[in-house]
């Protein structure tokens, strides 16, 4: 019969060997022996069945106490050694975090497309709808419907690309502006009209720093019963601040465009120097941004609107130009360059 003293001796011996354990595997081995079928704890427990009540009580209490103490010791040792083992394993798994990563591939939208979406969103926020139309357009929509006289120089072959389509050699062309979309829109929609028309346009210009036969423009048009020059100013001032950052001052100078009367050119105070004069604004403090004006009554008439009741304003802005100005792109040709050294900078 195993006595409580034997059990306590077993406990002490086991704890002593546990002291020397250096891994959870050793702890497991010690546990298997110390609490296994041949261990004094198990043998004592088995002998309780046949023991007299007095012994049963005495030895039973000792067995439970020793078993509980040992189990607690094993948990504690396993925890202690387990932590150290994890630490050691993780230390061995050290990864050089300065190595270049396995990044998901990331391309970039073209800068002009980014600016395009940005300015469209500004106007959508102001309640405008986006309209679009064909790039190869009829001379009627590109010129006639927009108050352009038949002899106007912009119709010359030196200025406009004509396309071989149909019988009239001057009937179909690459649109020189996005304005034909305005004419198409007004033809099929009653006022009020609040639209912006971003798009690609073409003029017969050779490529240089600021010209390209292909360029991008956005036109805006608002026609309603109570639209004035004041609305034009308020809208474009809002736009300039949204695009270049708040605190921009704008000025409107009289100008001339065939589709508007009065017409104006809008300048915005330089975003780079705040108007004191720098490289971006060529020392003037102002950046010439866009052309605009009150819609010419002839344009309203050709759309079938009554110019004595309806009035409106229109503006046209070069999307490429906005991008060039804000991002200080020195030459327009970079926008048509497939060189990744250019495109990667648009990320």
């Amino acid at each position: 019969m195993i006595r409580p003293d034997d059990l306590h001796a077993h406990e002490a011996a086991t704890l002593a060997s546990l002291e020397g354990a250096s891994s959870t595997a050793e702890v497991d081995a010690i546990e298997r022996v110390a609490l296994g079928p041949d261990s004094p704890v198990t043998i004592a427990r088995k002998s309780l069945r046949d023991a007299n009540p007095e012994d049963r009580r005495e030895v039973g209490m000792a067995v439970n106490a020793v078993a509980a103490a040992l189990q607690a010791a094993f948990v504690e040792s396993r925890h202690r050694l387990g932590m150290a083992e994890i630490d050691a394993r993780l230390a061995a798994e050290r990864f050089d975090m300065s190595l270049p990563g396995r990044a998901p591939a990331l391309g970039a939208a073209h800068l002009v497309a980014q600016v395009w979406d940005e300015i469209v969103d500004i106007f959508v926020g102001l309640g405008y709808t986006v309209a679009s139309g064909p790039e190869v357009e009829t001379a009627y929509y590109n010129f006639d419907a927009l108050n352009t006289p038949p002899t106007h120089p912009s119709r010359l072959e030196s200025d406009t690309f004509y396309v071989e389509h149909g019988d009239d050699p001057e009937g179909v062309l690459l649109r020189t502006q996005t304005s034909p979309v305005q004419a198409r829109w007004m033809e099929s929609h009653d006022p009020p009209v609040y639209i912006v028309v971003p798009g690609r346009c073409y003029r017969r210009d050779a490529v240089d720093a600021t010209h390209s036969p292909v360029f991008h423009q956005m036109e805006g048009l608002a026609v309603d019963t109570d639209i004035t020059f004041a609305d034009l100013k308020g809208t474009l001032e809002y736009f300039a601040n949204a695009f270049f950052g708040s605190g921009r001052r704008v000025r409107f100078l009289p100008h001339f465009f065939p589709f508007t009367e009065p017409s104006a050119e809008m300048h915005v105070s330089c975003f780079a120097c705040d108007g004191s004069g720098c490289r971006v604004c060529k020392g003037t403090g102002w950046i010439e941004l866009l052309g605009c004006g009150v819609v010419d009554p002839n344009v309203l008439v050709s759309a079938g609107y009554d110019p004595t009741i309806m009035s409106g304003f229109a503006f046209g802005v070069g999307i490429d130009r906005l991008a060039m100005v804000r991002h200080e792109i020195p030459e327009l040709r970079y926008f048509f360059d497939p060189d990744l050294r250019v495109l990667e900078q648009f990320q």
Partner: protein
Amino acid sequence: MKVSLRWLREFVDLPTEDPRRLTEVLDGLGIEVEGADELAVPFSGVVVAKVEAIRPHPSADRIRLVTIDDGSGGKEVVCGAWNFEEGATVAYATVGSVLAGGLAVGERKIRGILSPGMIASEVELGIGDESGGILLLDRGEPGEDFAEMVALPDVVFEVSITPNRPDAMSVHGIARELAAYFDVPVRPVTVDGSVGAGTSAVRVRIEDPAGCPRFTAREIAGVSVRPSPLWMRQRLRAVGIRPISNVVDVTNYVMVELGQPLHAFDLDLVPDETIVVRRASAGEALTTLDGVARVLDPADLVIASPDGVLGLAGIMGGGSSEVSETTTRVLVEVANFEPTGVLLSGKRHALRTEAVARFERGVDPELPPIASARATDLITKLAGGTVVGSLVDEYPGLHVPVTVELPEHEVERLLGVAIARETISGYLSRLGFVVAGADPMLVTVPSFRPDVSRPADLVEEVARLHGFDSIPARLPTGGGGRLPSEEVIRRSVRSTMIGAGYFETFTFDFSDIDEIRAFILDPEDPRGNAIRIRNPLSEEEAYLRTTLLPGLLAGIRTNQTRNRSEIALFELGTVFLRSAGELPDQPRQLAFASVGRVAGSSWEKTPNRDASDAIGMIETLFASLRTTYELEQRPCTGFHPGRAAAVMVGGRAVGVVGEVHPSVAEWFGLDGRVEAGELDTAGFSPRRSEFVAPSGFPPVVFDLAFDMDADAAAASLLDVIRRGGGERLERAVLFDVFAGPPLDRGRRSIAVRLTFRDAERTLTDEDLLPVRREITETVERELGGRLRGV
């Protein structure tokens, strides 16, 4: 155009002459100032002096001793020039004066004689390049400040005039605008409309009154053509015009001053002394003053004699009747020409003269007699001569003044600011309009403002004088904005492409036909028959693109030649296809092309791209745009015959995907396999996403591998599995493909993992036995595939 402040002063007394302030005012009037050049006096201490006596230098032959009166008594200076005699008026640099380039003038001993100061030449004064002798003056009193004589200092404004403002193309016109702004009077041009003795033999016949509404001719006899006096030369130089001779200088002077171009002929060189204004006959020749021999177009309006063409009307004179040093009889032409004709002729002959710049805007038809009188006056003063007879004035296109009704409210309706009627009327009057009536006001437009004919035009005039700055700003509420779905799809496609590592690029819409046909190899493919631009910039840019891919392949080449090896580009753009309709078909497309390794980190090897990458790009695009599609493997022009497929949506081909044909890649100079695709973005029609709550029951998963013919499409196997799997088939993922032993030659194994789940209960393997059998049998029957032992 250049305008000098001193010249403006002749017509208006400005309350300020501060160049910055005047720039602001002109800008605000719509006369854009591109620069204000402040001309300083290049010398100091120079006065006018009169030569009183000349004697030889006692010890030198080539220099003389000159006694001058500079207003403060006589002085004797040493002078090396010989181009003057006693009585000449000269510029005297006093002791202590400074000449151009900072040369200080003192008392200097020359060959033993002390010279107090010196007589100066143009070059020494820094006002010209004449250095052959001293500067001789034609006027000036001894002691007078010489700077004033050469009109210095001055401010020269470079202004840009909009095409609608012929009236502002002159000193007088700009003076008129400034006077209106400052509300001060503008002085009229002083002219002497005198009639000369005798009768002029000059006859004028206008054969094309539409092209030439008015023509005046003035004969002046006995002129002596020589260089203009200093003041004239200085004034022209200040505005950037090179002085030529007194007669020619006067024509330029009057043009700048009044905005009316004019031309002087040597009357002795005008056959029959008869001027005919007519259209050129086809093939007629003219050598213009610039020495260029030109063949005229029947649309060109010309000034001719009965013997032939003398000049291009309103553009440039001809060499045959040019005024020269031997000219004694001058005919001064001051005419009015129809703007568009001049503009078109000017463009045709690539001549952008000062005259064109004015006539193309529409010169005041009432101006010719005034300009003619002004020129006559100046010529007789500068070149001598006398007027012969009276002015010949043919005026078939008599100007009828326009009167516009302006309702008072119209100003507020268009500008958004209320302006009192008296103020409106005041603004218009200051600008030369005559206002009568009350509401509506009856406004008569002056002849120099052809751009004004409607109320809106008058509102602009009011706005200019009121100041655009004085109009308030108001933000209208708009009409409810939205992006159309095609714009939303375009943006979605773009972000998917960017997320897949592609860079967006922009290319021109026109290209070389060879480049298009290098890709569209199939002669039956209509895209090889691209639409031509009738007037291209060059043959390389003569055809409208029918596919975006050649542009991208060229882009890859650009990058490969710059030593890049991993390249992925895309473009969203329009292509142009022949159509019987009013306009060509213009679908908006997406194209992408890539070459090199797939993305990874820079230090791990990743595989090279192959057709699978192109297929995967299509899968991602259609998944992100929630559109169902199928690939139909078939040869597609420009692509590898065994590695291409049509992209089908709803039974219609919307695009193509695959590997670019190696020969095409070679034509474009590309290295490596190029994976590409092109789609009509209208093919994307995102369906509404539908939500199904995930089942809480466990799945049954098993794999099936089939030994199949190597040419049987993987998609057909998946199709059979999906059909046979029924509603409980949650996923079927192809996870392994291999060929070779133990399979027979021409066979391959395709393995698919099937996941089944029921929404209502836990499935057992037994539940799926019939499904498994059905699939196996169908694969065997339809595809000749044998289930392999798993």
